[in-house]
């Protein structure tokens, strides 16, 4: 019988070893994943005993600070957001019962001091054993508060978003989304957030960050990418000649140009160059370019600008959407692009959906001579011991040749100086831009766009503005907002330089 007893003993031990293995899985392997679950109240409450770091704007203004509360002999650090809705889209919130979003979520390791060097980590373990309070690091953002304020005011009661990036570094200067909400209400007055309504869009969805996760048809603003592909592939030059009958024939069907309400029927331009087709946003020309290049080449260039994946911005990936061709809610893979309707993709229709962040990245890449920089919000990490870590700019990759970028810049300048985007003119500054007006079907309001950068000869800012449910064009509605934001940034950087 003893052999059987041994077998039984062995199986008992196997069961108990399985428990040790499973504990290791949950406590070591899966622990970071569980720590980030939004309903993990244990993690969140225990983090509230940490003296969380401040979040500061570029000028040092406090965007998030702590309110100290003592209950049941424990000290908790609750968050306050002095500027409320103004920076909610970027900063987000950290609460005990509604999780965290924005930088409060993505930069939590900095803010709770969990990113420390080895020496710091050892000190933190010591603090924990002694029961003393753990202090997190402060983070300083690239956010330009003056321009952020201008952007939020300019968006006004519209539903939409605006984003500004410093092209040479990828520093995000403005991240604005409307309608917004007051992050101070989330913990205890969530009903107020839920009750937010907008006359411009239903539902108002104030908690969704439209700048990074709002997916919109890009309309003609996508012609920047199409033109980049046309020029960079060497198949076309700005002087390439076209004939515009007012439509193009795509898949045997007529695709009309934009309907100009001053005329009867679609606009017709006759003979024109690629540059002037870009200046006046002539759909039929881009439609033909798209057919010539093919969907694969078009989307390949789009990918070089960052389409197809979630942009590598330092926000948590839950709140960032990838731009590209969508079938329902599913992003199509590169191999599925080939079947796409190249003619319509070329002027930003078909299944194309983009985020304002992605379009700002496109503008910034052109402004930066064709090199895409990683967009980021956190500029510096300031530790409690006084050491400062600067977050260095990172190159994502080269999207187009410098010559292509230069030609494209000239073409975009012409849009502002004498094309569809004249509303973005700033006196004394050369502005490059592109309008977009995506028609959402007959009788439905437009999604309007303006993407731009300035000064065209030495760019310091690239912007993307999107507005939902507009009756006007991108040039009339979005371009003035983009102008105000660029002016604000150029004014403040001129002062500091």
């Amino acid at each position, binding site marked *: *019988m*003893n052999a*059987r*007893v*041994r077998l*039984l*003993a062995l199986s*008992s*031990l196997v*069961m*108990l*070893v*399985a*428990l*040790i293995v*499973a*504990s*290791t*899985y*949950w*406590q*070591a392997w*899966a*622990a970071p994943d*569980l*720590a980030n*679950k939004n*309903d*993990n*109240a*244990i*993690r969140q*409450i*225990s983090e*509230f005993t940490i003296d969380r770091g401040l979040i500061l704007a570029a000028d040092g203004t406090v965007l998030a600070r702590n309110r100290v*509360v003592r*209950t*049941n*002999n*424990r000290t*908790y650090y609750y968050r306050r957001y002095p500027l409320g809705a103004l920076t909610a889209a970027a900063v987000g919130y950290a609460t*005990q019962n509604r999780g965290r979003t924005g930088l409060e979520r993505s930069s939590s390791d900095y803010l709770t001091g969990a990113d420390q060097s080895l020496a710091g980590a050892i000190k933190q*373990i010591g603090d*924990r*054993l002694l*029961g003393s309070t753990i202090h997190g690091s402060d983070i300083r953002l690239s956010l330009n508060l003056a321009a952020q304020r201008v952007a939020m005011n300019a968006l006004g009661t519209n539903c939409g978003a605006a984003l500004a990036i410093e092209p040479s570094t990828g520093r995000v200067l403005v991240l604005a989304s409307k309608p917004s909400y007051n992050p101070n209400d989330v913990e205890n007055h969530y009903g107020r957030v839920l009750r937010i309504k907008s006359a411009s869009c239903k539902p108002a969805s104030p908690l969704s960050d439209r700048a990074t996760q709002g997916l919109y048809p890009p309309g003609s603003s996508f012609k920047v990418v199409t033109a980049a592909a046309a020029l960079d592939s060497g198949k076309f030059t700005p002087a390439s000649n076209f004939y515009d009958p007012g439509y193009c024939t795509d898949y045997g069907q007529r695709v009309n140009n934009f309907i100009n309400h001053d005329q009867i029927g679609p606009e017709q331009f006759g003979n024109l160059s690629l540059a002037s087709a870009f200046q006046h946003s002539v759909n039929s020309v881009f439609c033909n370019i798209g057919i010539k290049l093919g969907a694969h080449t078009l989307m390949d260039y789009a990918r070089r600008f960052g389409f197809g994946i979630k942009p590598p911005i330092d926000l948590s990936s839950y709140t960032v959407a990838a731009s590209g061709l969508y079938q329902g809610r599913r992003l199509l893979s590169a191999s599925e692009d080939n079947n796409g309707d190249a003619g319509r993709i070329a002027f930003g229709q078909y299944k194309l959906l983009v985020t304002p962040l992605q379009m700002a990245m496109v503008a910034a890449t052109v402004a930066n001579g064709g090199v895409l920089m990683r967009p980021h919000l956190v500029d510096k990490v300031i530790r409690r011991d006084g050491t400062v870590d600067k977050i260095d700019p990172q190159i994502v990759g080269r999207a187009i040749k410098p010559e292509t970028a230069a030609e494209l810049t000239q073409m975009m300048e012409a849009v502002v100086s004498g094309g569809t985007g004249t509303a973005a003119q700033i006196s004394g500054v050369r502005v490059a831009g592109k309008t977009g007006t995506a028609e959402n079907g007959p009788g439905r309001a437009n999604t309007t766009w303006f993407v731009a950068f300035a000064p065209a000869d030495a760019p310091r800012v690239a912007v993307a503005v999107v507005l939902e449910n507009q009756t006007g064009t991108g040039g009339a509605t979005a371009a003035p907002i983009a102008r105000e934001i660029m002016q604000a940034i150029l004014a403040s950087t001129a002062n500091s330089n």
Partner: protein
Amino acid sequence: MSARTRELLILILVGLITATGFASVYIARQNEISPVSLSYAGFFFVLYLTAHVVARFTVPDADPYLLPMAALLTAIGLTEIYRLGQTDALRQGLWVVIGVAAFAGTLIALRHDFRRLESYKYLFGLSALGLLFLPALPKIGHSVNGARLWVRVGSLQFQPGELGKIAMIIFLAAYLHSKQEVLAQGRLKDFGPLLAIWGCAMLVLVATHDLGSALLFFGIFLAILYLATARLLYVGVGLVLFLAGSAGVYQTTAHVRDRVTIWLHPWTTGGVPCATHGGALMPRQECGSYQLVKSLYSIAQGGFSGTGLGKGTFTLPGGGNLIPDLNTDFIFSALAQELGLVGIAAILLVFMLFTVRGFRIALVAGDGFSKLLCAGLTFGFALQTFIIIGGILRLIPLTGITLPFISYGGSSVVANFILLAALMLVSQRANETA
């Protein structure tokens, strides 16, 4: 060094560990805890000294490691229960006293020859059935989280299944020992008892809605049956029957179905109908799998080294509990958070050592009944540990049985001390004849 002296030395070590544990809880939570409670450790030590003295007189040659290991596990449980709430700790302390009394009583009553239990086998068999089905009775039966495992008489409530388990093991060991030769031939008509016990297991499952109890009960039966007959075929047939029966119950019983769904998909991104909220749509982690998921968060929060005793997060700042049933079914998740992987691995190693010592006694025991009894009790101990912790760690569906020696609960403590006494009695007999 004699076995009992060795036991005493290890008990002193356990006493020191206990004192350290209570002291660290006190240091972490001195705002809420009076220094008087530090005397708990002393009281605890005196209690186990008494148990040791009884063992010295009744079972001088018994295994010296079992009692200290049981003491250590009880001390860990009591420390954590004390950290979670002092009134529960006081009650649990009282139950440990009763448990030690039951331990001493068992040792004294059976010190001459425990094997006379064998002649009362049908009495044990019947009382086991009675105890297992007691919670299913109307009026006194009482369900917690959908499983009917409790009996409530007045203000007293207990899980009779714990004692039923031990009575069942005594019956099985005695019965199968007497029928050993007949069963080993494996004739078809001898499958009768197997089918009868399987039927009982299924009835337990249907009556209590608890997959864990049924699994424990049937697993012990198969283990002892295999030991007695050496026929793996019985085990195979038994397992197939059990799976088939469970599948049937799964089809018919919503509670069992829910448990399995929670086990497979604790997290949902969208809403699912929530029965406890009037069918409102909500993510499953906020409804059916709330407890399991919160417990996993607690375990993960512990990480490698844990938060330290007394420093874990189990309540909302306002005072509400984050994890329901923390000190009974989920005491493991509390320990996992405060002691971390290091502490949990150590505790599981103690469980393993206890199991190894138990089987070692079965190996050296001289007669078949002793072997069956001892191996059955030890296997039951290991299987119960696996079922409850495995449920918490999502290895198997979660069920509401207690963690031996550690969980809060009177019936569990008393039953496990009787189990300990039985193992030591067998050990004494084996060592004195050796």
